[in-house]
């Protein structure tokens, strides 16, 4: 969630009240924003740091927070934004070249006339653009904004896409003109701009905006020209917006003009610009300030809020949330709702319903425990099974541990004297693409690394240590939609002055007894006498010391005998890899076979 810093004194002045911390907390809580920090005493002037819901682009600046809270408090009506053509009546025009389709196809713009900047307003205007770029515009990749002193420029304008060598101008805060190609090198190390370069760097043409004198306004999404640079003295502002996403282009346009048109000579008016873009049928007059109209059902709102409010009351509630709602003259249940351009977050009647509930007060809603007719309680079979193994192991004197499921390839394979399965083999591990922590390379395929790391971190503990885990490992599985599956395993480790082979063996016997699986003595590979049950056979397994490793076999009624796990004394090289000075024995088996 974005956090917006606003001047405390100025905000309280705008809200017409000097709030105490508790009062302002309460207001934020009811509205659904959060006062994160008050820097009073640490910063001059004191700032309030306010967390804003991620979809409220209309609250990313001081002006938006003050507006929404004032409307919510009933201190101000939601303004009506109107288009006001220039005195002469002839609109500025921007012609969009078809070549832009290849790199950044959508364009929008607007003019704010007679703006009165103060240092605070100017800073807020710049900060809002930064916030929009960072959040909604996904680091300028979807949308980029350029703002200019219109009085330094001469219309008509054009939005073009040209090879970078043909674009030449002095970028913002630079006196030297350079080509767009040179700029890519010039800003390569720039800590602010470098991250935007890849958005267009490899494109054969770069997007660029010119005025009638071929003065460059912007090279979106990288930088504006220095010529039309905005200053505190600027009064007429030309805003250009380019995008790869048409919906977000309109949202950004709306937010910018709605937030700052209040400072225009004629407040809340915006001068339209004619955009000529016939190649993609995007020719229009920009911006479109028409509120979106929709309908909401009073019965629907009442049924979810648990209220029975008349339509007129609902319209009053919605007014506090910036809507203009009126009872429909034609339908007895319907509200005609106009959604202002600032409320891009409203997608469905449900959003209107929620706003009505917020305006009413979440904490004033009638609370009733729902008498649902849902089916009765049931535990997931694999969890029931796992709990038997867990409880029996703990009762047998072993301590449960919960290591992580993400680990490195080495921990999972090499350190256990195994190698990762080749591409043709079964039981391949799931590999991660982008871990922030380098050691998280795969999802574990064995519980052993986690147990051994837990022992390693507990060398201060008295020996012997007896630990176990019942948890999921995961493998690739090409047959499934997710191309992978979890498998519930049980593993235990004994660590002490002696290797404890009989101890893990005894734990296996105990758990099998509790699962009503009997021990049967058998010859190799399950051949020979004996019915259902489990048995063990010596096995060669590089994880374990030769001659001290056993494979566990299980035969259940009506099923084929299968190997379900292994146990043994760990090979000294495994102990060394996990930095364990004493011997240890481990056990690991698949629990799902008992389902």
């Amino acid at each position, binding site marked *: 969630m974005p956090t917006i810093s606003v001047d405390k004194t100025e905000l309280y002045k705008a809200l017409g009240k000097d709030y105490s911390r508790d009062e302002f907390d309460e207001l934020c809580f009811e509205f*659904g924003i959060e006062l994160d920090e008050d820097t009073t005493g640490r910063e001059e002037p004191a700032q309030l740091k306010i967390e804003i819901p991620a*979809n409220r682009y209309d609250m990313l600046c001081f002006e938006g927070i003050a507006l929404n809270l004032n409307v919510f408090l009933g201190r101000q009506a939601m303004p009506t934004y109107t288009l006001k053509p220039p005195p002469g009546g002839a609109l500025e025009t921007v012609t969009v070249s078809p070549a832009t389709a290849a790199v950044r196809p959508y364009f929008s713009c607007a003019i704010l006339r007679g703006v009165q900047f103060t240092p605070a307003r100017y800073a807020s205007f710049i900060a809002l653009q930064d916030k929009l770029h960072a*959040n909604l515009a996904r680091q300028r990749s*979807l949308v980029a904004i350029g703002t200019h002193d219109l009085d330094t420029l001469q219309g008509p304008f054009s939005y073009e896409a040209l090879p970078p060598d043909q674009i030449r101008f002095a970028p913002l805060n630079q006196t030297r003109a350079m080509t767009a190609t040179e700029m890519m090198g010039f800003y390569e190390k720039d800590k602010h701009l470098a991250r935007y370069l890849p958005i267009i760097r490899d494109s054969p043409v770069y997007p660029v905006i010119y005025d009638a004198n071929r003065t460059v306004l912007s090279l979106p999404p990288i930088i504006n020209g220095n010529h039309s640079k905005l200053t505190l003295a600027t009064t007429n502002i030309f805003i250009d917006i380019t995008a790869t*996403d048409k*919906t977000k282009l309109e949202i950004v346009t709306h937010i910018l003009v709605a937030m700052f048109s209040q400072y225009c000579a004629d407040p809340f008016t915006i001068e339209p610009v004619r955009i000529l873009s016939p190649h993609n049928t995007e020719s229009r007059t920009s911006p479109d300030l028409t509120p979106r109209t929709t309908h909401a059902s009073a019965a629907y709102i009442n049924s*979810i809020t648990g209220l029975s409010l008349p339509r007129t009351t609902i319209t009053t509630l919605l007014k506090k949330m910036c809507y203009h709602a009126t009872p429909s003259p034609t339908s007895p249940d319907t509200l005609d709702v106009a959604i202002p351009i600032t409320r891009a977050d409203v*997608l*469905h*009647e*449900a959003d209107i*319903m*929620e706003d009505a*509930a917020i305006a009413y007060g*979440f*904490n004033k*809603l009638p*609370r*009733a425990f*729902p008498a649902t*007719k*849902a*089916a*009765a*309680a*049931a*535990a*997931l*079979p694999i969890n029931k099974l796992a709990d038997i193994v*867990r409880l029996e*192991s*703990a009762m047998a004197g072993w*301590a449960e*541990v*919960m*290591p992580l*499921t993400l680990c490195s390839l080495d921990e999972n394979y090499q350190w256990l004297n195994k190698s990762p399965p080749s591409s043709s083999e079964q039981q391949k591990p*799931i*590999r*991660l693409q*982008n*871990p*922030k*922590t380098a050691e*998280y390379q795969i*999802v574990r395929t064995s519980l052993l690394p986690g147990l051994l790391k*837990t022992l390693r*971190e*507990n060398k201060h503990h008295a020996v012997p*240590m007896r*630990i176990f885990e019942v948890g*999921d490992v*995961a493998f*690739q599985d*090409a047959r499934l*939609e*997710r*191309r992978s*599956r*979890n498998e519930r395993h049980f593993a235990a480790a004994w660590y002490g002055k002696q290797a404890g082979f009989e101890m893990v063996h005894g734990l296996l016997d105990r758990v099998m007894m509790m699962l009503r699986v009997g021990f049967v003595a058998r010859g190799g590979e399950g051949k020979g006498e004996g019915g259902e049950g489990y048995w063990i056979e010596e096995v060669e397994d590089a994880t374990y010391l030769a001659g001290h490793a056993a494979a566990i076999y299980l035969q259940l009624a009506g099923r084929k005998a299968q190997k379900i796990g292994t146990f043994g004394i760990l090979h000294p090289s495994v102990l060394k890899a996990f930095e364990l000075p004493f011997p240890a024995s481990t056990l690991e088996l698949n629990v799902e076979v008992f389902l």
Partner: protein
Amino acid sequence: MPGTRGPVPVPVQNGDRDLTLQILEAVDENASVKTSETFPNASQTEVKAALDRLASRQMIEYETDDSEEVVLTGEGQQIVDEGSHEFKVWDAVRKAGRMSLKDQALATPSAKVGQGNAFKLKWIKKDGDSLIPLTDSVTDTTREVLQYVAEHRALQNPRDLKDLRKRTLVTTQKIITYDARKGPRWARDIPVEVTDLTADMLADGSWKTANFKPYNFKALGEQSQGVGALHPLNKVREEFRKIFFNLGFTEMPTGRFVDTGFWNFDALFVPQQHPARDMQDTFYVSDPPEAGPPGPDPEADAALNAMEEEDRDEEDSDPPTRPTQQPTKHLDYAQYYANVRATHQDGAFGSIGYRYPYNDAEPRRLVLRTHTTAVSTYCLHRLAANPRPAKYFSIDRVFRNETVDATHLAEFHQVEGVIADYGLTLGGLQGFLRRFFKKMGLVGLKFKPAYNPYTEPSMEVFAYHRGLGKLVEIGNSGMFRPEMLLAMGLPEDLRVYGFGLSLERPTMIKYGVNNIRELLGHKVDLGFIEGNAAVRLDKA
């Protein structure tokens, strides 16, 4: 030592004689016995052990005196034996009559000290490059003072202590001495005592006359109980599960760490450009490279069917008598996908949608699930085959591509509940959560409007925390968006609550753990696992 059996004591031996018996003799003969005087050669620990043995039987009582005594250092003892350094220099010069300053006898460090002191005392003087005596007889005061110390372990004039200590001739040491006398159960002999009732004693009847040693009621009992232990996180998890079962919830099949972009995001109406889907926040899977198209999960279905079967009586298994046994609709996954796609890109089901070009590759990307809501989504879609009230929950592991620190791990456990029913209200969700959290000892719930892409309304849940004296966030909740539910094919009037919290946070609060790495993962202290108390959430 715990577990010791049979008669005691084994007496402490002092040389050939039994110190315990010696003390008994001394106390018998004297009204008061000072151990440092009576047993000057016995070590303090031996004396204490013997006294305690007798005092525990109330045969004697004693007090402890702490005092300080002055003792000679090695150098101090040497002066007592041979005379002070200045005396030795004077004596040598006197005997020689005249001694060259370069004489080897004056070269030692102690001789240099002695020479200086002898000058000051005017016992000798320099004559050219030699020393000559000034007097025929001297009084060696240093030696006399130290001789007093050797005899009395104290100084006649306490002001000398600082000076002598500085000269490292004496030092002080703490001495503990005991003043013992007869106790309430005085006896001349130590009775044979038994510490435990044994089978032999029962057999021969000796328990009737046995003298049982008094039990030490101030000590702990046997500590090595051969304990096994459950992990505290799983203990808290179990408490949550009990609450869910108590409230009639069915556990969801969460056995898939890897899920698809479709189930984890798109089906939840999370737009494809949402920040949560950034590489910075979500673990993407590189191998296997891509998911299959959305479809049924046979393993999950089998588990859900088995649990639903559990709850069905034999008598009413006849389909027509049960409303939930209406013929089930076929779940058309291709239609579901098309609905989700349309809802995002063009708007559908009364929503204008996000209106961006939907990328069909995104739902096929494999991720480590960022929330168990991916599973809830699967279960809710399954419900569309036979729409009916349902209550589901899960507690399982989820993954976030976080930089690991004291409060963040790349994996943690999410507790999640879902309730589907007709005519649910927002206040009903509040009422439900009030009951749910009350079982955890959390009351005074308040709800704050919040934003979540897949719930509308969304509410953060706060409770008053007595320890912190303020409202703290304890979970998230909401009603799933129509865009999500209607795309599944659920009827419009079937509404669905969702709520969730992490398992780690309440556990950390419960057990006072500040660093999540000390709770989940291999850095946990086994002693902590073995020693943590039962959960008892209602006793918060």
